[in-house]
């Protein structure tokens, strides 16, 4: 009897642990949300600023605008190589400046969507090496996003968890 109770309580702890781990998952921001947050004079909404300093996940295409060790790159809604035939640029700022801790070791594919997690910053910032930016992810980690969907302008963004 005692043994059965121990097994039951162990299962309960494991289930609770899984639930807690799930609830710890970082919120995902979409490019649609980022573009929607833009106001006049390079200002961004308070709602998007509320994520400042928090770890978030953004999915997009890698544009290697910095050195090829990917210590810095742009994350964009649109691929650097594809989509010439079917999608026009919106003219809005659809890029996030990504700073990785030690550079990223990955098999770079310009047509692949990557999942980037890092500390989010919104608002104008000028960096001598990379110029003016609106959205940034610092201490970022990159991995491939399998089956990811990039939110286009006009799509209904999923509410961040």
């Amino acid at each position, binding site marked *: 009897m005692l043994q059965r109770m121990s097994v039951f309580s162990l299962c309960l702890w494991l289930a609770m642990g899984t639930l807690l781990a799930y609830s710890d998952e970082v919120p995902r921001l979409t490019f649609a949300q980022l573009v929607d947050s833009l106001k006049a004079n390079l200002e961004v909404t308070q709602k998007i600023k509320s994520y400042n300093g928090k770890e978030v996940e953004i999915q997009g295409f890698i544009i290697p605008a910095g*050195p090829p060790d990917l210590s810095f790159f742009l994350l964009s809604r649109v691929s650097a190589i594809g989509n010439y035939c079917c999608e026009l640029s919106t003219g809005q700022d659809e890029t996030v400046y990504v700073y990785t801790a030690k550079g990223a070791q990955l098999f770079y594919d310009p047509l692949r969507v990557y999942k980037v997690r890092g500390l989010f910053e919104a608002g104008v910032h000028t960096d001598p090496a990379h110029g003016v*930016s609106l959205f940034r992810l610092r201490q970022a980690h990159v991995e491939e996003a399998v089956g990811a969907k990039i939110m286009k302008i006009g799509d209904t963004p999923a509410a961040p968890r």
Partner: protein
Amino acid sequence: MSLWTIAWKYLCGRRLASALTAVSVALGVSLILATFLLTRGIRAGFIAGTTDYSLIVGAKSSPTQLVLGTIFRLDVATPNIPYTVYEQLQDDERVERAVPVALGDAYQGFHYVGTTTDYFATAPWRRKNFSVAAGRFWDDDPPDQPSYEAVLGAEVAQRTGLQIGEAFYEGEEMAERPLRAVGILRPTHSADDRTIFFSLASYWDMNEVARAMAIKPLTTVLVRPKRLSDLTHLHREFNVNPETQAALPSAVLLTIFNLLSVAEEVLRFVLGAVVLVVLLYLFVALYSAMLERRREIATMRALGARRMTILVIVLLESCLIALIGGIIGLLGGHGVAVLGAHLLSQRGGLALAPFTVSTVHPLLLVGVILLGACAGLLPAVLAYRTEVAENLAPLS
């Protein structure tokens, strides 16, 4: 006498066999180290030698050709684009700096590059700094008054022996229009060390066809946007244009790195096979040595040596061979890497640092000693189990 001394004396007793075994270990280690240093060095060389500009605009061709030709001078130049492309970029309010580049012939294998003084200008976003070790930079002369003044890359000056003020040319048709060295650059550890720079006016005046052209030709334009977020728009605009293409240098290099990693995967399998062969060779050498010495071991045991002492002596022998082979291998690996780096620098324009010492070196040496101990384990156990009575029986 310590166990180390006994193991050493055993090795010295069969000098040739021990030396050959150590050499085989050394060859394996040098192959592994040289492969590691060169593959890592090629990546590091590309990263160090790349441009600070985010975009290259040129004629329609392969992006790899555009980047390797313009930045590393490892490929033939792409076809020409009109000078108006540069003017258009200069007038574009999204562009912070546009630098025209015209790739030409070569002097003793060192490429000619026609450009403006912007090529050498500093900026907060530039890692690379150009300064002259001797002489001065040339000035941007007007198109109808070419100065024919040239600035030499550090390696050009070193290998051609050209001095400041000296005139030079290659090819009969250039005898009337010789270039004159006015400056020598400090080393930049990039393809620019192997380049001869002069003004666009001189470049156009050197060429009969370009002299007659109303709109002068260029090969590429290096572009730095004011905001990097405009990069995607600029990239797209020049690629949609039927005459031009734009390439992101880092994207091209990352594609090259992808190919390199495939080659590295294959090399890893080959090196794994090499390690296995060396291990087997070490095992066979120690095993046959142990079989030859059974009588000696039995004598040692009869004189009071414990089984464990015999086991440790054989293990120490294998570790000593691995250590000697490992040290020679590390030196040999650097030697091969130096040769490879020299060839890559001469033929590929990549600056490699083959003397870099990292945590890999001690790890490799410890790994070799451990593998040596593993290879010596079975012979050591056999020596441990040697029966005194059986092996001390009269030979006749």
